[in-house]
């Protein structure tokens, strides 16, 4: 696995961490074993020094300000880089599903059912783990804005799948605040 260039050591903004954790949550909504897959990939990719066990990995994800039990400790760039690498590897594994959801060649009715299933799983995870009083969470749960936001997240996962997606996603998560 290629190492990230040492020159880029900018930490992610709060918005970047929010988006990274939401995409990891989408991976869990797409794959019922997504949480286990994250732990397994973390070990497989050699991140045991950064995340020695699943609790440490979980604690890093709780830096997301939208979480119910958010942690104020900021993440180091090497920790966010490792989480981005785990996400790109997960997206690569889930790519056939991501592609099917995004494809216009699939039967419309069947794809609508797939989207409904994905959104209902994502909704359950969001209600369980995120703070419903936050505007970002309310937009995600909103019946009008939610579908477009979840499609954006799925499209972002498809565009960052694989090793080639690492730098693209990291650059996107480091975007200036608007």
């Amino acid at each position, binding site marked *: 696995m290629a190492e990230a260039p040492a020159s880029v050591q900018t930490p992610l903004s709060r918005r970047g961490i929010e988006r990274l954790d939401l995409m990891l949550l989408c991976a869990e909504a797409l794959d019922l074993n997504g949480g286990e897959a994250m732990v397994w990939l973390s070990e497989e990719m050699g991140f045991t020094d950064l995340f020695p066990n699943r609790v440490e990995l979980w604690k890093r994800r709780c830096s997301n300000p939208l979480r119910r039990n958010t942690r104020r400790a900021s993440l180091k760039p090497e920790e966010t880089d490792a989480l981005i690498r785990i996400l790109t590897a997960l997206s690569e594994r889930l*790519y056939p599903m*991501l*592609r*099917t959801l*995004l*494809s*216009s*060649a699939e039967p419309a009715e069947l794809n609508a059912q797939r989207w409904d299933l994905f959104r209902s799983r994502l909704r359950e995870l969001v209600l369980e783990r995120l703070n419903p009083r936050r505007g970002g969470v309310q937009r995600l749960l909103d019946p009008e804005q939610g579908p477009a936001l979840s499609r*954006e997240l799925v*499209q*972002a996962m*498809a*565009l*960052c*799948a*694989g*090793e*080639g*997606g690492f*730098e*693209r*996603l*990291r*650059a*996107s998560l*480091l*975007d*200036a*605040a*608007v």
Partner: protein
Amino acid sequence: MKLTTRYEQTSCRLIVEGLPDLSAGQDASTIGILTGFTMGLAGQTELEGKREHLQALLSAVIPYARHLLSGVPKAFGAADAPVAIAPGETGHQLELRSSQPNTPPLTLRLDDAELSDLVRCLDQLRLDSRLALPFEAPPLLPLARKELRHRQPLLRRIAAPVAGVAALAISAALIAMLPTPKPAAQTAPELAPPAKGG
């Protein structure tokens, strides 16, 4: 000895052909000189081209995907470039301009899945260690605030400054309505009588 490398995703197939550049000390399994490529895209067409066409494809599609990932789709590819890509009404429009005279440009409509297939094929190409071709890929950098401005609706973007200016104007008007305090009547200071003796 001609070498062939394939990169495949569901709707995109890219086959690169070339030769090792033995004069540069490359081994026999490395492509150092690209002789041509063929690409099957979205089940619609089979494209052929040379290195400059592949370079133009990379220069347009990779930054397009970068902007799309940040939620700000933007057209890429100059008017005289062989490849241009822009957001369409539904999906993405890839325009391929032939270098042959009197050949009209070919416009392909890609959906989100076909675009990500193409991006993945190009990612595999640019990261492949079996290719010793210095493709010029634009650096993948964070976008500046001015590039992201239209991601937020105008109303939400201007809500805070408008509310600030309105609050200032209202408080200034209220303060202006208060009567000006009259100066207090001045009384002559009384001098203490001089001390006697001493």
